[in-house]
C-alpha cells in the first residue's frame, strides 16, 4: 500500500505541472499516530507532502460536492463508489475529476490495536508491508495489519475502484466473505432485545454529528437535525432524540451508502453506527438487487421503481 505514495506524488506533480487540475486531494501525515489528515496539494511542491498507508480511512469523496474547479482525487474502492453516486446526484461532474484509483487492502483500526496495549499511549506507529510497529514509553510491539482492519474493511467485497482515470497499482483480489453475519444475529432477536441492543449501542452518543460530517453521502444544504420549523429531532441527548437521529441518518443514506466506514471511524465515543446503515444496505440488495455506486448510470434505488416491486410491508 505504501508503494502508492511515490505514484501519487508523481501523478500529482505531473497533473499540477501540466495544469490539468487545480488541486489533488489526498492525505498527508497527521500529527498523531494512525491519523492521516486529508490534504489538497495545489502546487507541485506541495505534492511531496502526499502520503499513502493503512491510515487513510477517511472518505475523500466527502470533499467533492459542489466544487467548481478541476480536481484530482485518490480513491479507494469505497471512495470511488461514493464518487460515482455524487456524479449521479449532480454534486460534481465527471469531467471535473481525475480519479487516481487505489486498490485497497483495508485500513488499520487504531482502536483495535489500542485495546491490546493495556491503556498505554501509542506515540509512534510505523507501517512496513503487512506489519505495523507501534511504540511508546517503555514498549514496542508489532502487529499483523490484516488482523487489525477496520470492521468494514474486513468484510469489504469491493476493494478495487469502480471508476478511475489512472490506477496506482495492480487490482487486488476481492474477498469472498459473508457480509451480514452481525445483522442476521440482530434480526433474530426479539423486539424487546433489539430495542435494548440499540439503546445500549447509542447510549454514549453525544450528538456531535461527526458521523454525519464524515459521510460523503451527507450534503443536504440544511440537515434534518438543524431544521427548526418543524423540528423533527430534538437537540438533546434524550434517548428518544438520539434514537430518532440515528434512525433518520441511516435512512437518509439508504441505498447510497458504500459502507466505507467513515462514520464509525470518526465517532469519538466508538459507536458502531454501521449497524444501522448495513441493515438497509442488505435490504436494498435483497429487494432491488442494487449496490450503491457499482453501476455508473443506475439511479439510486429510492429514486426509481419497478411496477412489480415487492410489497413486504402489507
Amino acid at each position, binding site marked *: 500500500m505504501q508503494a502508492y505514495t511515490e505514484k501519487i506524488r508523481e501523478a500529482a506533480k505531473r497533473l499540477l505541472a501540466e495544469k490539468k487540475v487545480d488541486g489533488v486531494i489526498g492525505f498527508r501525515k497527521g500529527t498523531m499516530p494512525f491519523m492521516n489528515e486529508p490534504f489538497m496539494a495545489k502546487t507541485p511542491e506541495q505534492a511531496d507532502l502526499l502520503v499513502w498507508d493503512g491510515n487513510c480511512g477517511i472518505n475523500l469523496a466527502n470533499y467533492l460536492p459542489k466544487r467548481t474547479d478541476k480536481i484530482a482525487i485518490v480513491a479507494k474502492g469505497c471512495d470511488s463508489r461514493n464518487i460515482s453516486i455524487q456524479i449521479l446526484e449532480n454534486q460534481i461532474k465527471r469531467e471535473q475529476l481525475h480519479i487516481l484509483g487505489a486498490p485497497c487492502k483495508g485500513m488499520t483500526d487504531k482502536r483495535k490495536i489500542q485495546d491490546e496495549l493495556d491503556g498505554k499511549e501509542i506515540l509512534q506507529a510505523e507501517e512496513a508491508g503487512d506489519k505495523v510497529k507501534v511504540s511508546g514509553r517503555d514498549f514496542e510491539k508489532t502487529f499483523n495489519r490484516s488482523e487489525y482492519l477496520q470492521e468494514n474493511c474486513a468484510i469489504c467485497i469491493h476493494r478495487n475502484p469502480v471508476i478511475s482515470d489512472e490506477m496506482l497499482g495492480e487490482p487486488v483480489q476481492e474477498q469472498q466473505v459473508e457480509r451480514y453475519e452481525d445483522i442476521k444475529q440482530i434480526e433474530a432477536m426479539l*423486539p424487546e432485545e433489539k430495542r435494548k441492543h440499540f439503546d445500549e449501542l447509542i447510549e454514549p452518543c453525544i450528538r456531535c454529528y461527526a458521523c454525519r460530517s464524515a459521510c460523503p453521502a451527507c450534503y443536504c444544504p440544511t440537515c434534518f437535525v438543524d431544521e427548526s420549523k418543524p423540528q423533527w429531532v430534538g437537540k438533546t441527548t434524550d434517548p428518544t432524540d438520539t434514537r430518532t437521529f440515528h434512525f433518520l441518518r441511516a435512512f437518509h443514506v439508504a441505498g447510497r451508502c458504500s459502507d466505507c466506514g467513515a462514520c464509525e471511524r470518526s465517532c469519538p465515543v466508538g459507536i458502531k453506527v454501521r449497524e444501522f446503515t448495513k441493515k438497509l444496505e442488505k435490504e436494498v440488495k435483497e429487494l432491488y438487487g442494487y449496490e450503491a455506486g457499482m453501476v455508473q448510470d443506475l439511479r439510486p434505488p429510492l429514486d426509481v*421503481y419497478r411496477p412489480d416491486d415487492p410489497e413486504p*410491508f402489507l
Partner: protein
Amino acid sequence: MSEWEPKVITFLCNWCSYGAADLAGVSRFQYPANIRIIRLPCTGRMNPKFILAALRHGADGVWVSGCHPGDCHYIEGNFYARRKFALLKTQLEYTGIIEPGRVHFSWISSAEATIFAEKARKVVEAIKALGPAQHFIKKQAEVA
C-alpha cells in the same frame, strides 16, 4: 379510569383512501373511532419523519394508506412510496423502535369503503393487542 383506547395516526391519500373513508362514513359503516386521519396529497408525500414524529408525540400506532399501485392520481407517486415503505418498516422493526404490528400500510381505492372499515378494525385490533407505545415518547424534563 376507563379502559385504555389506542390512538392511531392515519395518513390517507387524498384521491383514494381518503375517499374510501368518506364513502365509509356516508354509507354508515361502523369502524373504530381510534383512528385520527391526516390527509396527504399522495402517499408519495409520506416522509419517514412523520411516522417518527407521531410516535414521539404519543401515538400508539400509525397507518398509511393510498391508491393501489398503478392507480395513482399522480401516475407514479405510490411506486416511489412503496420502496420507501418497504425499507422504512423493516428498519423500524430492526432497530426496535416499534414491535411488528404497530405500523401498517395498505392500498385502498375510493370505492373500497368496506375494505377501509375492515382494515381500520384490523389495525386498531392489532395495536390494542400490543398495548400502549411508551418507550419512544420523549419524556419531559422533571422540574422539582
